[in-house]
């Protein structure tokens, strides 16, 4: 009986095993005997699914893009689809203590968010500046609802956890009670800070988060201790205790040198910096009537440039690069207990084993970068790009169609006679470079009008978890290539797939949008699967039967 069963099982295994997996000598032998096997059509392509695409360029309902004057501040137009709130820009320039209640309400800021005091040197602008920053968590977890809190997407469907320094606001963290989306002022990266050389600066960290934090001013001239002997460097292992949840600390400085600098939390920096507690810190030249846009929310275009920058350049952009290891950033989404999160992030997480999954410029990845991080220009302009690499490894910043000139490194001017002009600029972690992007069509600085990408040329940087196009791709766009609504007049592939979550979940064919494309996702061969299951079943029978024989013999 057993022998007969075993025989049947072996036969069935042989029949079920697909012929293509027989050993090659046997296959060749069969080929000689019987010739080639009959044609069997390969599986059909899967039908293209209906794309649930987001709107690429949301309508500017509140007219935030237009050039406008608010509280006497001339705010430049913001040509991209999505613009900063101009009322907040005006309040940052005048000081939240110096604007009307209406401007303040429109800005969402508290009256003490950026206080501007006396004009100490009598040159027509305030020199006492008091900035208050809070800490907000984006894409955090809820102990009740199976959805993230204060949501912020870097690309369709991609919501890593973040901690950011944010301007002091009033009201809710979300757009409204019905929405789970963070309001627009709470975003990545932390705002770029702009102060004037020689100004008396106070920066108060109001720690509204659930972990201890500090602010360290990297490259900015500041004393190690303040006038009272209190730590002023933000480094817990040398200068001070960290600021606990619910607590505040004020840092004092009067920077003597200008330049593009950096600020970040220095508590458990390998985690806190990478979580997003970092931003640009720019010290501008002291000029008369130099009303600075003290904070640039989400970095990007500076809508009210300083006097010195406006003299030399036609436009100015703050660019902050950050790569994200999902294994770190999403830890805050796995628990609602701060003790558990602390242990997971600071004891268990090991950055030496880290790999980056997401690559952002100004807090977004492609295609969202095309909404708000384009560098817009006309021919024959000079554009100042202040770039910081806030990420864990270097970036090879490449500009298509242009060679840029490095004017400053880490805030220090390079020798004008020996400046380097090139199309790949290496920027190590925490380094800043000031670039002069010249759009003169001379075949060197620019090859002419168009839509020219700029991105990290280490190729992982142009992906989102390995899916391209994604990552920190953005573009230099000449105005004639920009539509009325701010979306570039691209003439390549359709963007609809990129504005779906499915594309970055790796569920859409990369060339599905191409007309007549044969490269669709391939269907499955059910018959093949059936045969394999049959084979496995038979094999199982064989094993059990053989074991039975062995046991019998042992008895």
């Amino acid at each position, binding site marked *: 009986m057993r022998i007969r069963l075993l025989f049947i099982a072996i036969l069935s295994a042989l029949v079920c095993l697909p012929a293509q997996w027989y050993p090659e000598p046997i296959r060749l032998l069969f080929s000689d005997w019987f010739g080639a096997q009959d044609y069997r059509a390969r599986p059909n392509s899967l039908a293209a699914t209906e794309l649930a695409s987001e709107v690429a360029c949301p309508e500017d309902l*509140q007219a935030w893009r237009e050039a406008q004057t608010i509280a006497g501040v001339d705010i430049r137009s913001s040509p991209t689809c999505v613009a900063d*709130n101009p009322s907040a820009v005006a309040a940052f320039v005048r000081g939240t*203590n110096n604007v009307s*209640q209406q401007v*303040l*309400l*429109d*800005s*969402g800021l*508290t*009256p*003490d968010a950026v206080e501007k005091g006396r004009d100490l040197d009598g040159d027509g602008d305030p020199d006492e500046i008091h900035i208050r920053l*809070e800490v*907000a*968590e*984006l894409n*955090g*977890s*809820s*102990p*009740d*609802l*199976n959805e993230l*809190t*204060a949501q912020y997407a870097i690309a369709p469907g991609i919501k890593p956890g973040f901690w950011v320094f944010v301007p*002091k606001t*009033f*009201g*809710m*963290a*979300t*757009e*409204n*009670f*019905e*929405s*789970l989306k*963070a*309001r627009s*002022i*709470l975003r990545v990266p932390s705002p770029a800070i702009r102060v004037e050389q020689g100004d008396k600066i106070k920066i108060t960290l*109001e*720690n*509204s*988060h*659930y972990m201890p934090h500090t602010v360290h001013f990297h490259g900015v001239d500041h004393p190690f201790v303040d006038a009272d002997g209190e730590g002023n460097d933000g480094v817990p292992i040398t200068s001070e205790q960290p600021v*606990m*949840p*619910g*607590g*505040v600390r004020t840092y004092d400085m009067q920077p003597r040198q200008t330049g593009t600098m950096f600020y970040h939390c220095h508590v458990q920096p390998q985690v806190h910096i990478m979580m997003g507690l970092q931003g640009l810190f720019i010290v501008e030249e002291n000029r008369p009537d130099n009303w600075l846009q003290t904070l640039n929310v989400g970095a990007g275009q500076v809508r009210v440039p300083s006097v010195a920058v406006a003299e030399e350049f036609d436009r100015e952009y703050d660019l902050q690069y950050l790569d994200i290891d999902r294994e770190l950033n999403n830890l805050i989404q796995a*628990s*609602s*207990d*701060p*003790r*558990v999160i602390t242990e997971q992030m600071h004891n268990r997480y090991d950055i030496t084993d880290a790999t980056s999954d997401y690559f952002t410029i100004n807090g977004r990845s492609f295609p969202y970068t095309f909404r708000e991080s384009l560098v817009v220009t006309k021919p024959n302009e000079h554009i100042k790009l202040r770039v910081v690499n806030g990420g864990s490894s270097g970036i090879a910043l490449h500009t298509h169609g242009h060679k840029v000139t490095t004017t400053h490194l880490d805030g220090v001017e390079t020798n004008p006679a020996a400046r380097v002009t090139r199309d790949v600029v290496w920027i190590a972690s925490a380094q800043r470079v000031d670039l002069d992007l010249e759009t003169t069509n001379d075949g060197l600085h620019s090859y002419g009008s168009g839509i020219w990408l700029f991105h990290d040329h280490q190729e992982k940087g142009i992906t989102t978890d390995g899916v391209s196009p994604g990552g920190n791709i953005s573009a230099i766009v000449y105005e004639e290539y920009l539509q009325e609504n701010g979306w570039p007049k691209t003439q390549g592939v359709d963007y609809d797939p990129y504005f779906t979550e499915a594309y970055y979940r790796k569920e859409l064919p990369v060339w599905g949008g191409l007309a007549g494309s044969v490269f669709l996702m391939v269907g499955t061969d059910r018959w093949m699967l059936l045969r394999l299951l049959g084979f496995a079943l038979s094999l199982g029978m064989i094993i059990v039967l053989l074991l039975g024989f062995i046991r019998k013999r042992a008895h």
Partner: protein
Amino acid sequence: MSAKKIFFAVCLLAINFFPLLQAQQVDSHVAHNMEDPRGQNDMGDLQSNHGEHNMTLDSDGMAMNSNWQTLPQDCAKIIREYKFEVYAGTEFSSDYPGTIYGMSEREILVEPCSSVTIKFINTDDIRHQWMIHGLPRYLYPGGMFHLEAAGGQIREGTFIVPSDDKTYLVHCDMAQHMEMGMKAQLKVGKGSGDLWSIPGVSRSFRPDTYLPKASRNYLMLALFVGAMLTALILHLWRRY
């Protein structure tokens, strides 16, 4: 034999799901906590149409939609006047492990059609909020009344509740403050059940598990022992 089985199963279910039964209307409450009344999106961005809110804002904080005189449609008069002092800050989280922020009053009980005055005292150095949701929208734009106190400041405000028995969500809406313990409820009359995740009142709907690190080993061991015991019992049974 089978009666015993059923009893066992019921006990097991009761142990596991008693908390769910206790906080009635699971779905509606979770929804109420954060989503209600999502879908009736008639409020828009607070920052963009604050015009319709009645609001005061200064560097000590803000009060929004205070109302001490206009009666809800279903109330003929104010039945009672309440005044509560609510302290808020990190120190009020200390009795509840795993929270960072807290409020002194986490359950406020009032009679229908009463006026409620909240004196909100912030003992931290950062700002906090006392925000209540779900009030009638014809009286309170967005259905909310909101006090916000800057660090170390006090804010006071009054609102009048309608007549129906209902539990209202009270929280601080700064990022992660509610999640970290700044959550309370206000019950009008008998209320309409408890909300989830209110420190000292109700547990979390999606709590952490807090298992020891080697728990996987313990589980595997238990699985193994269970299998072995069963085999042993079967063996003994067959034998005798």
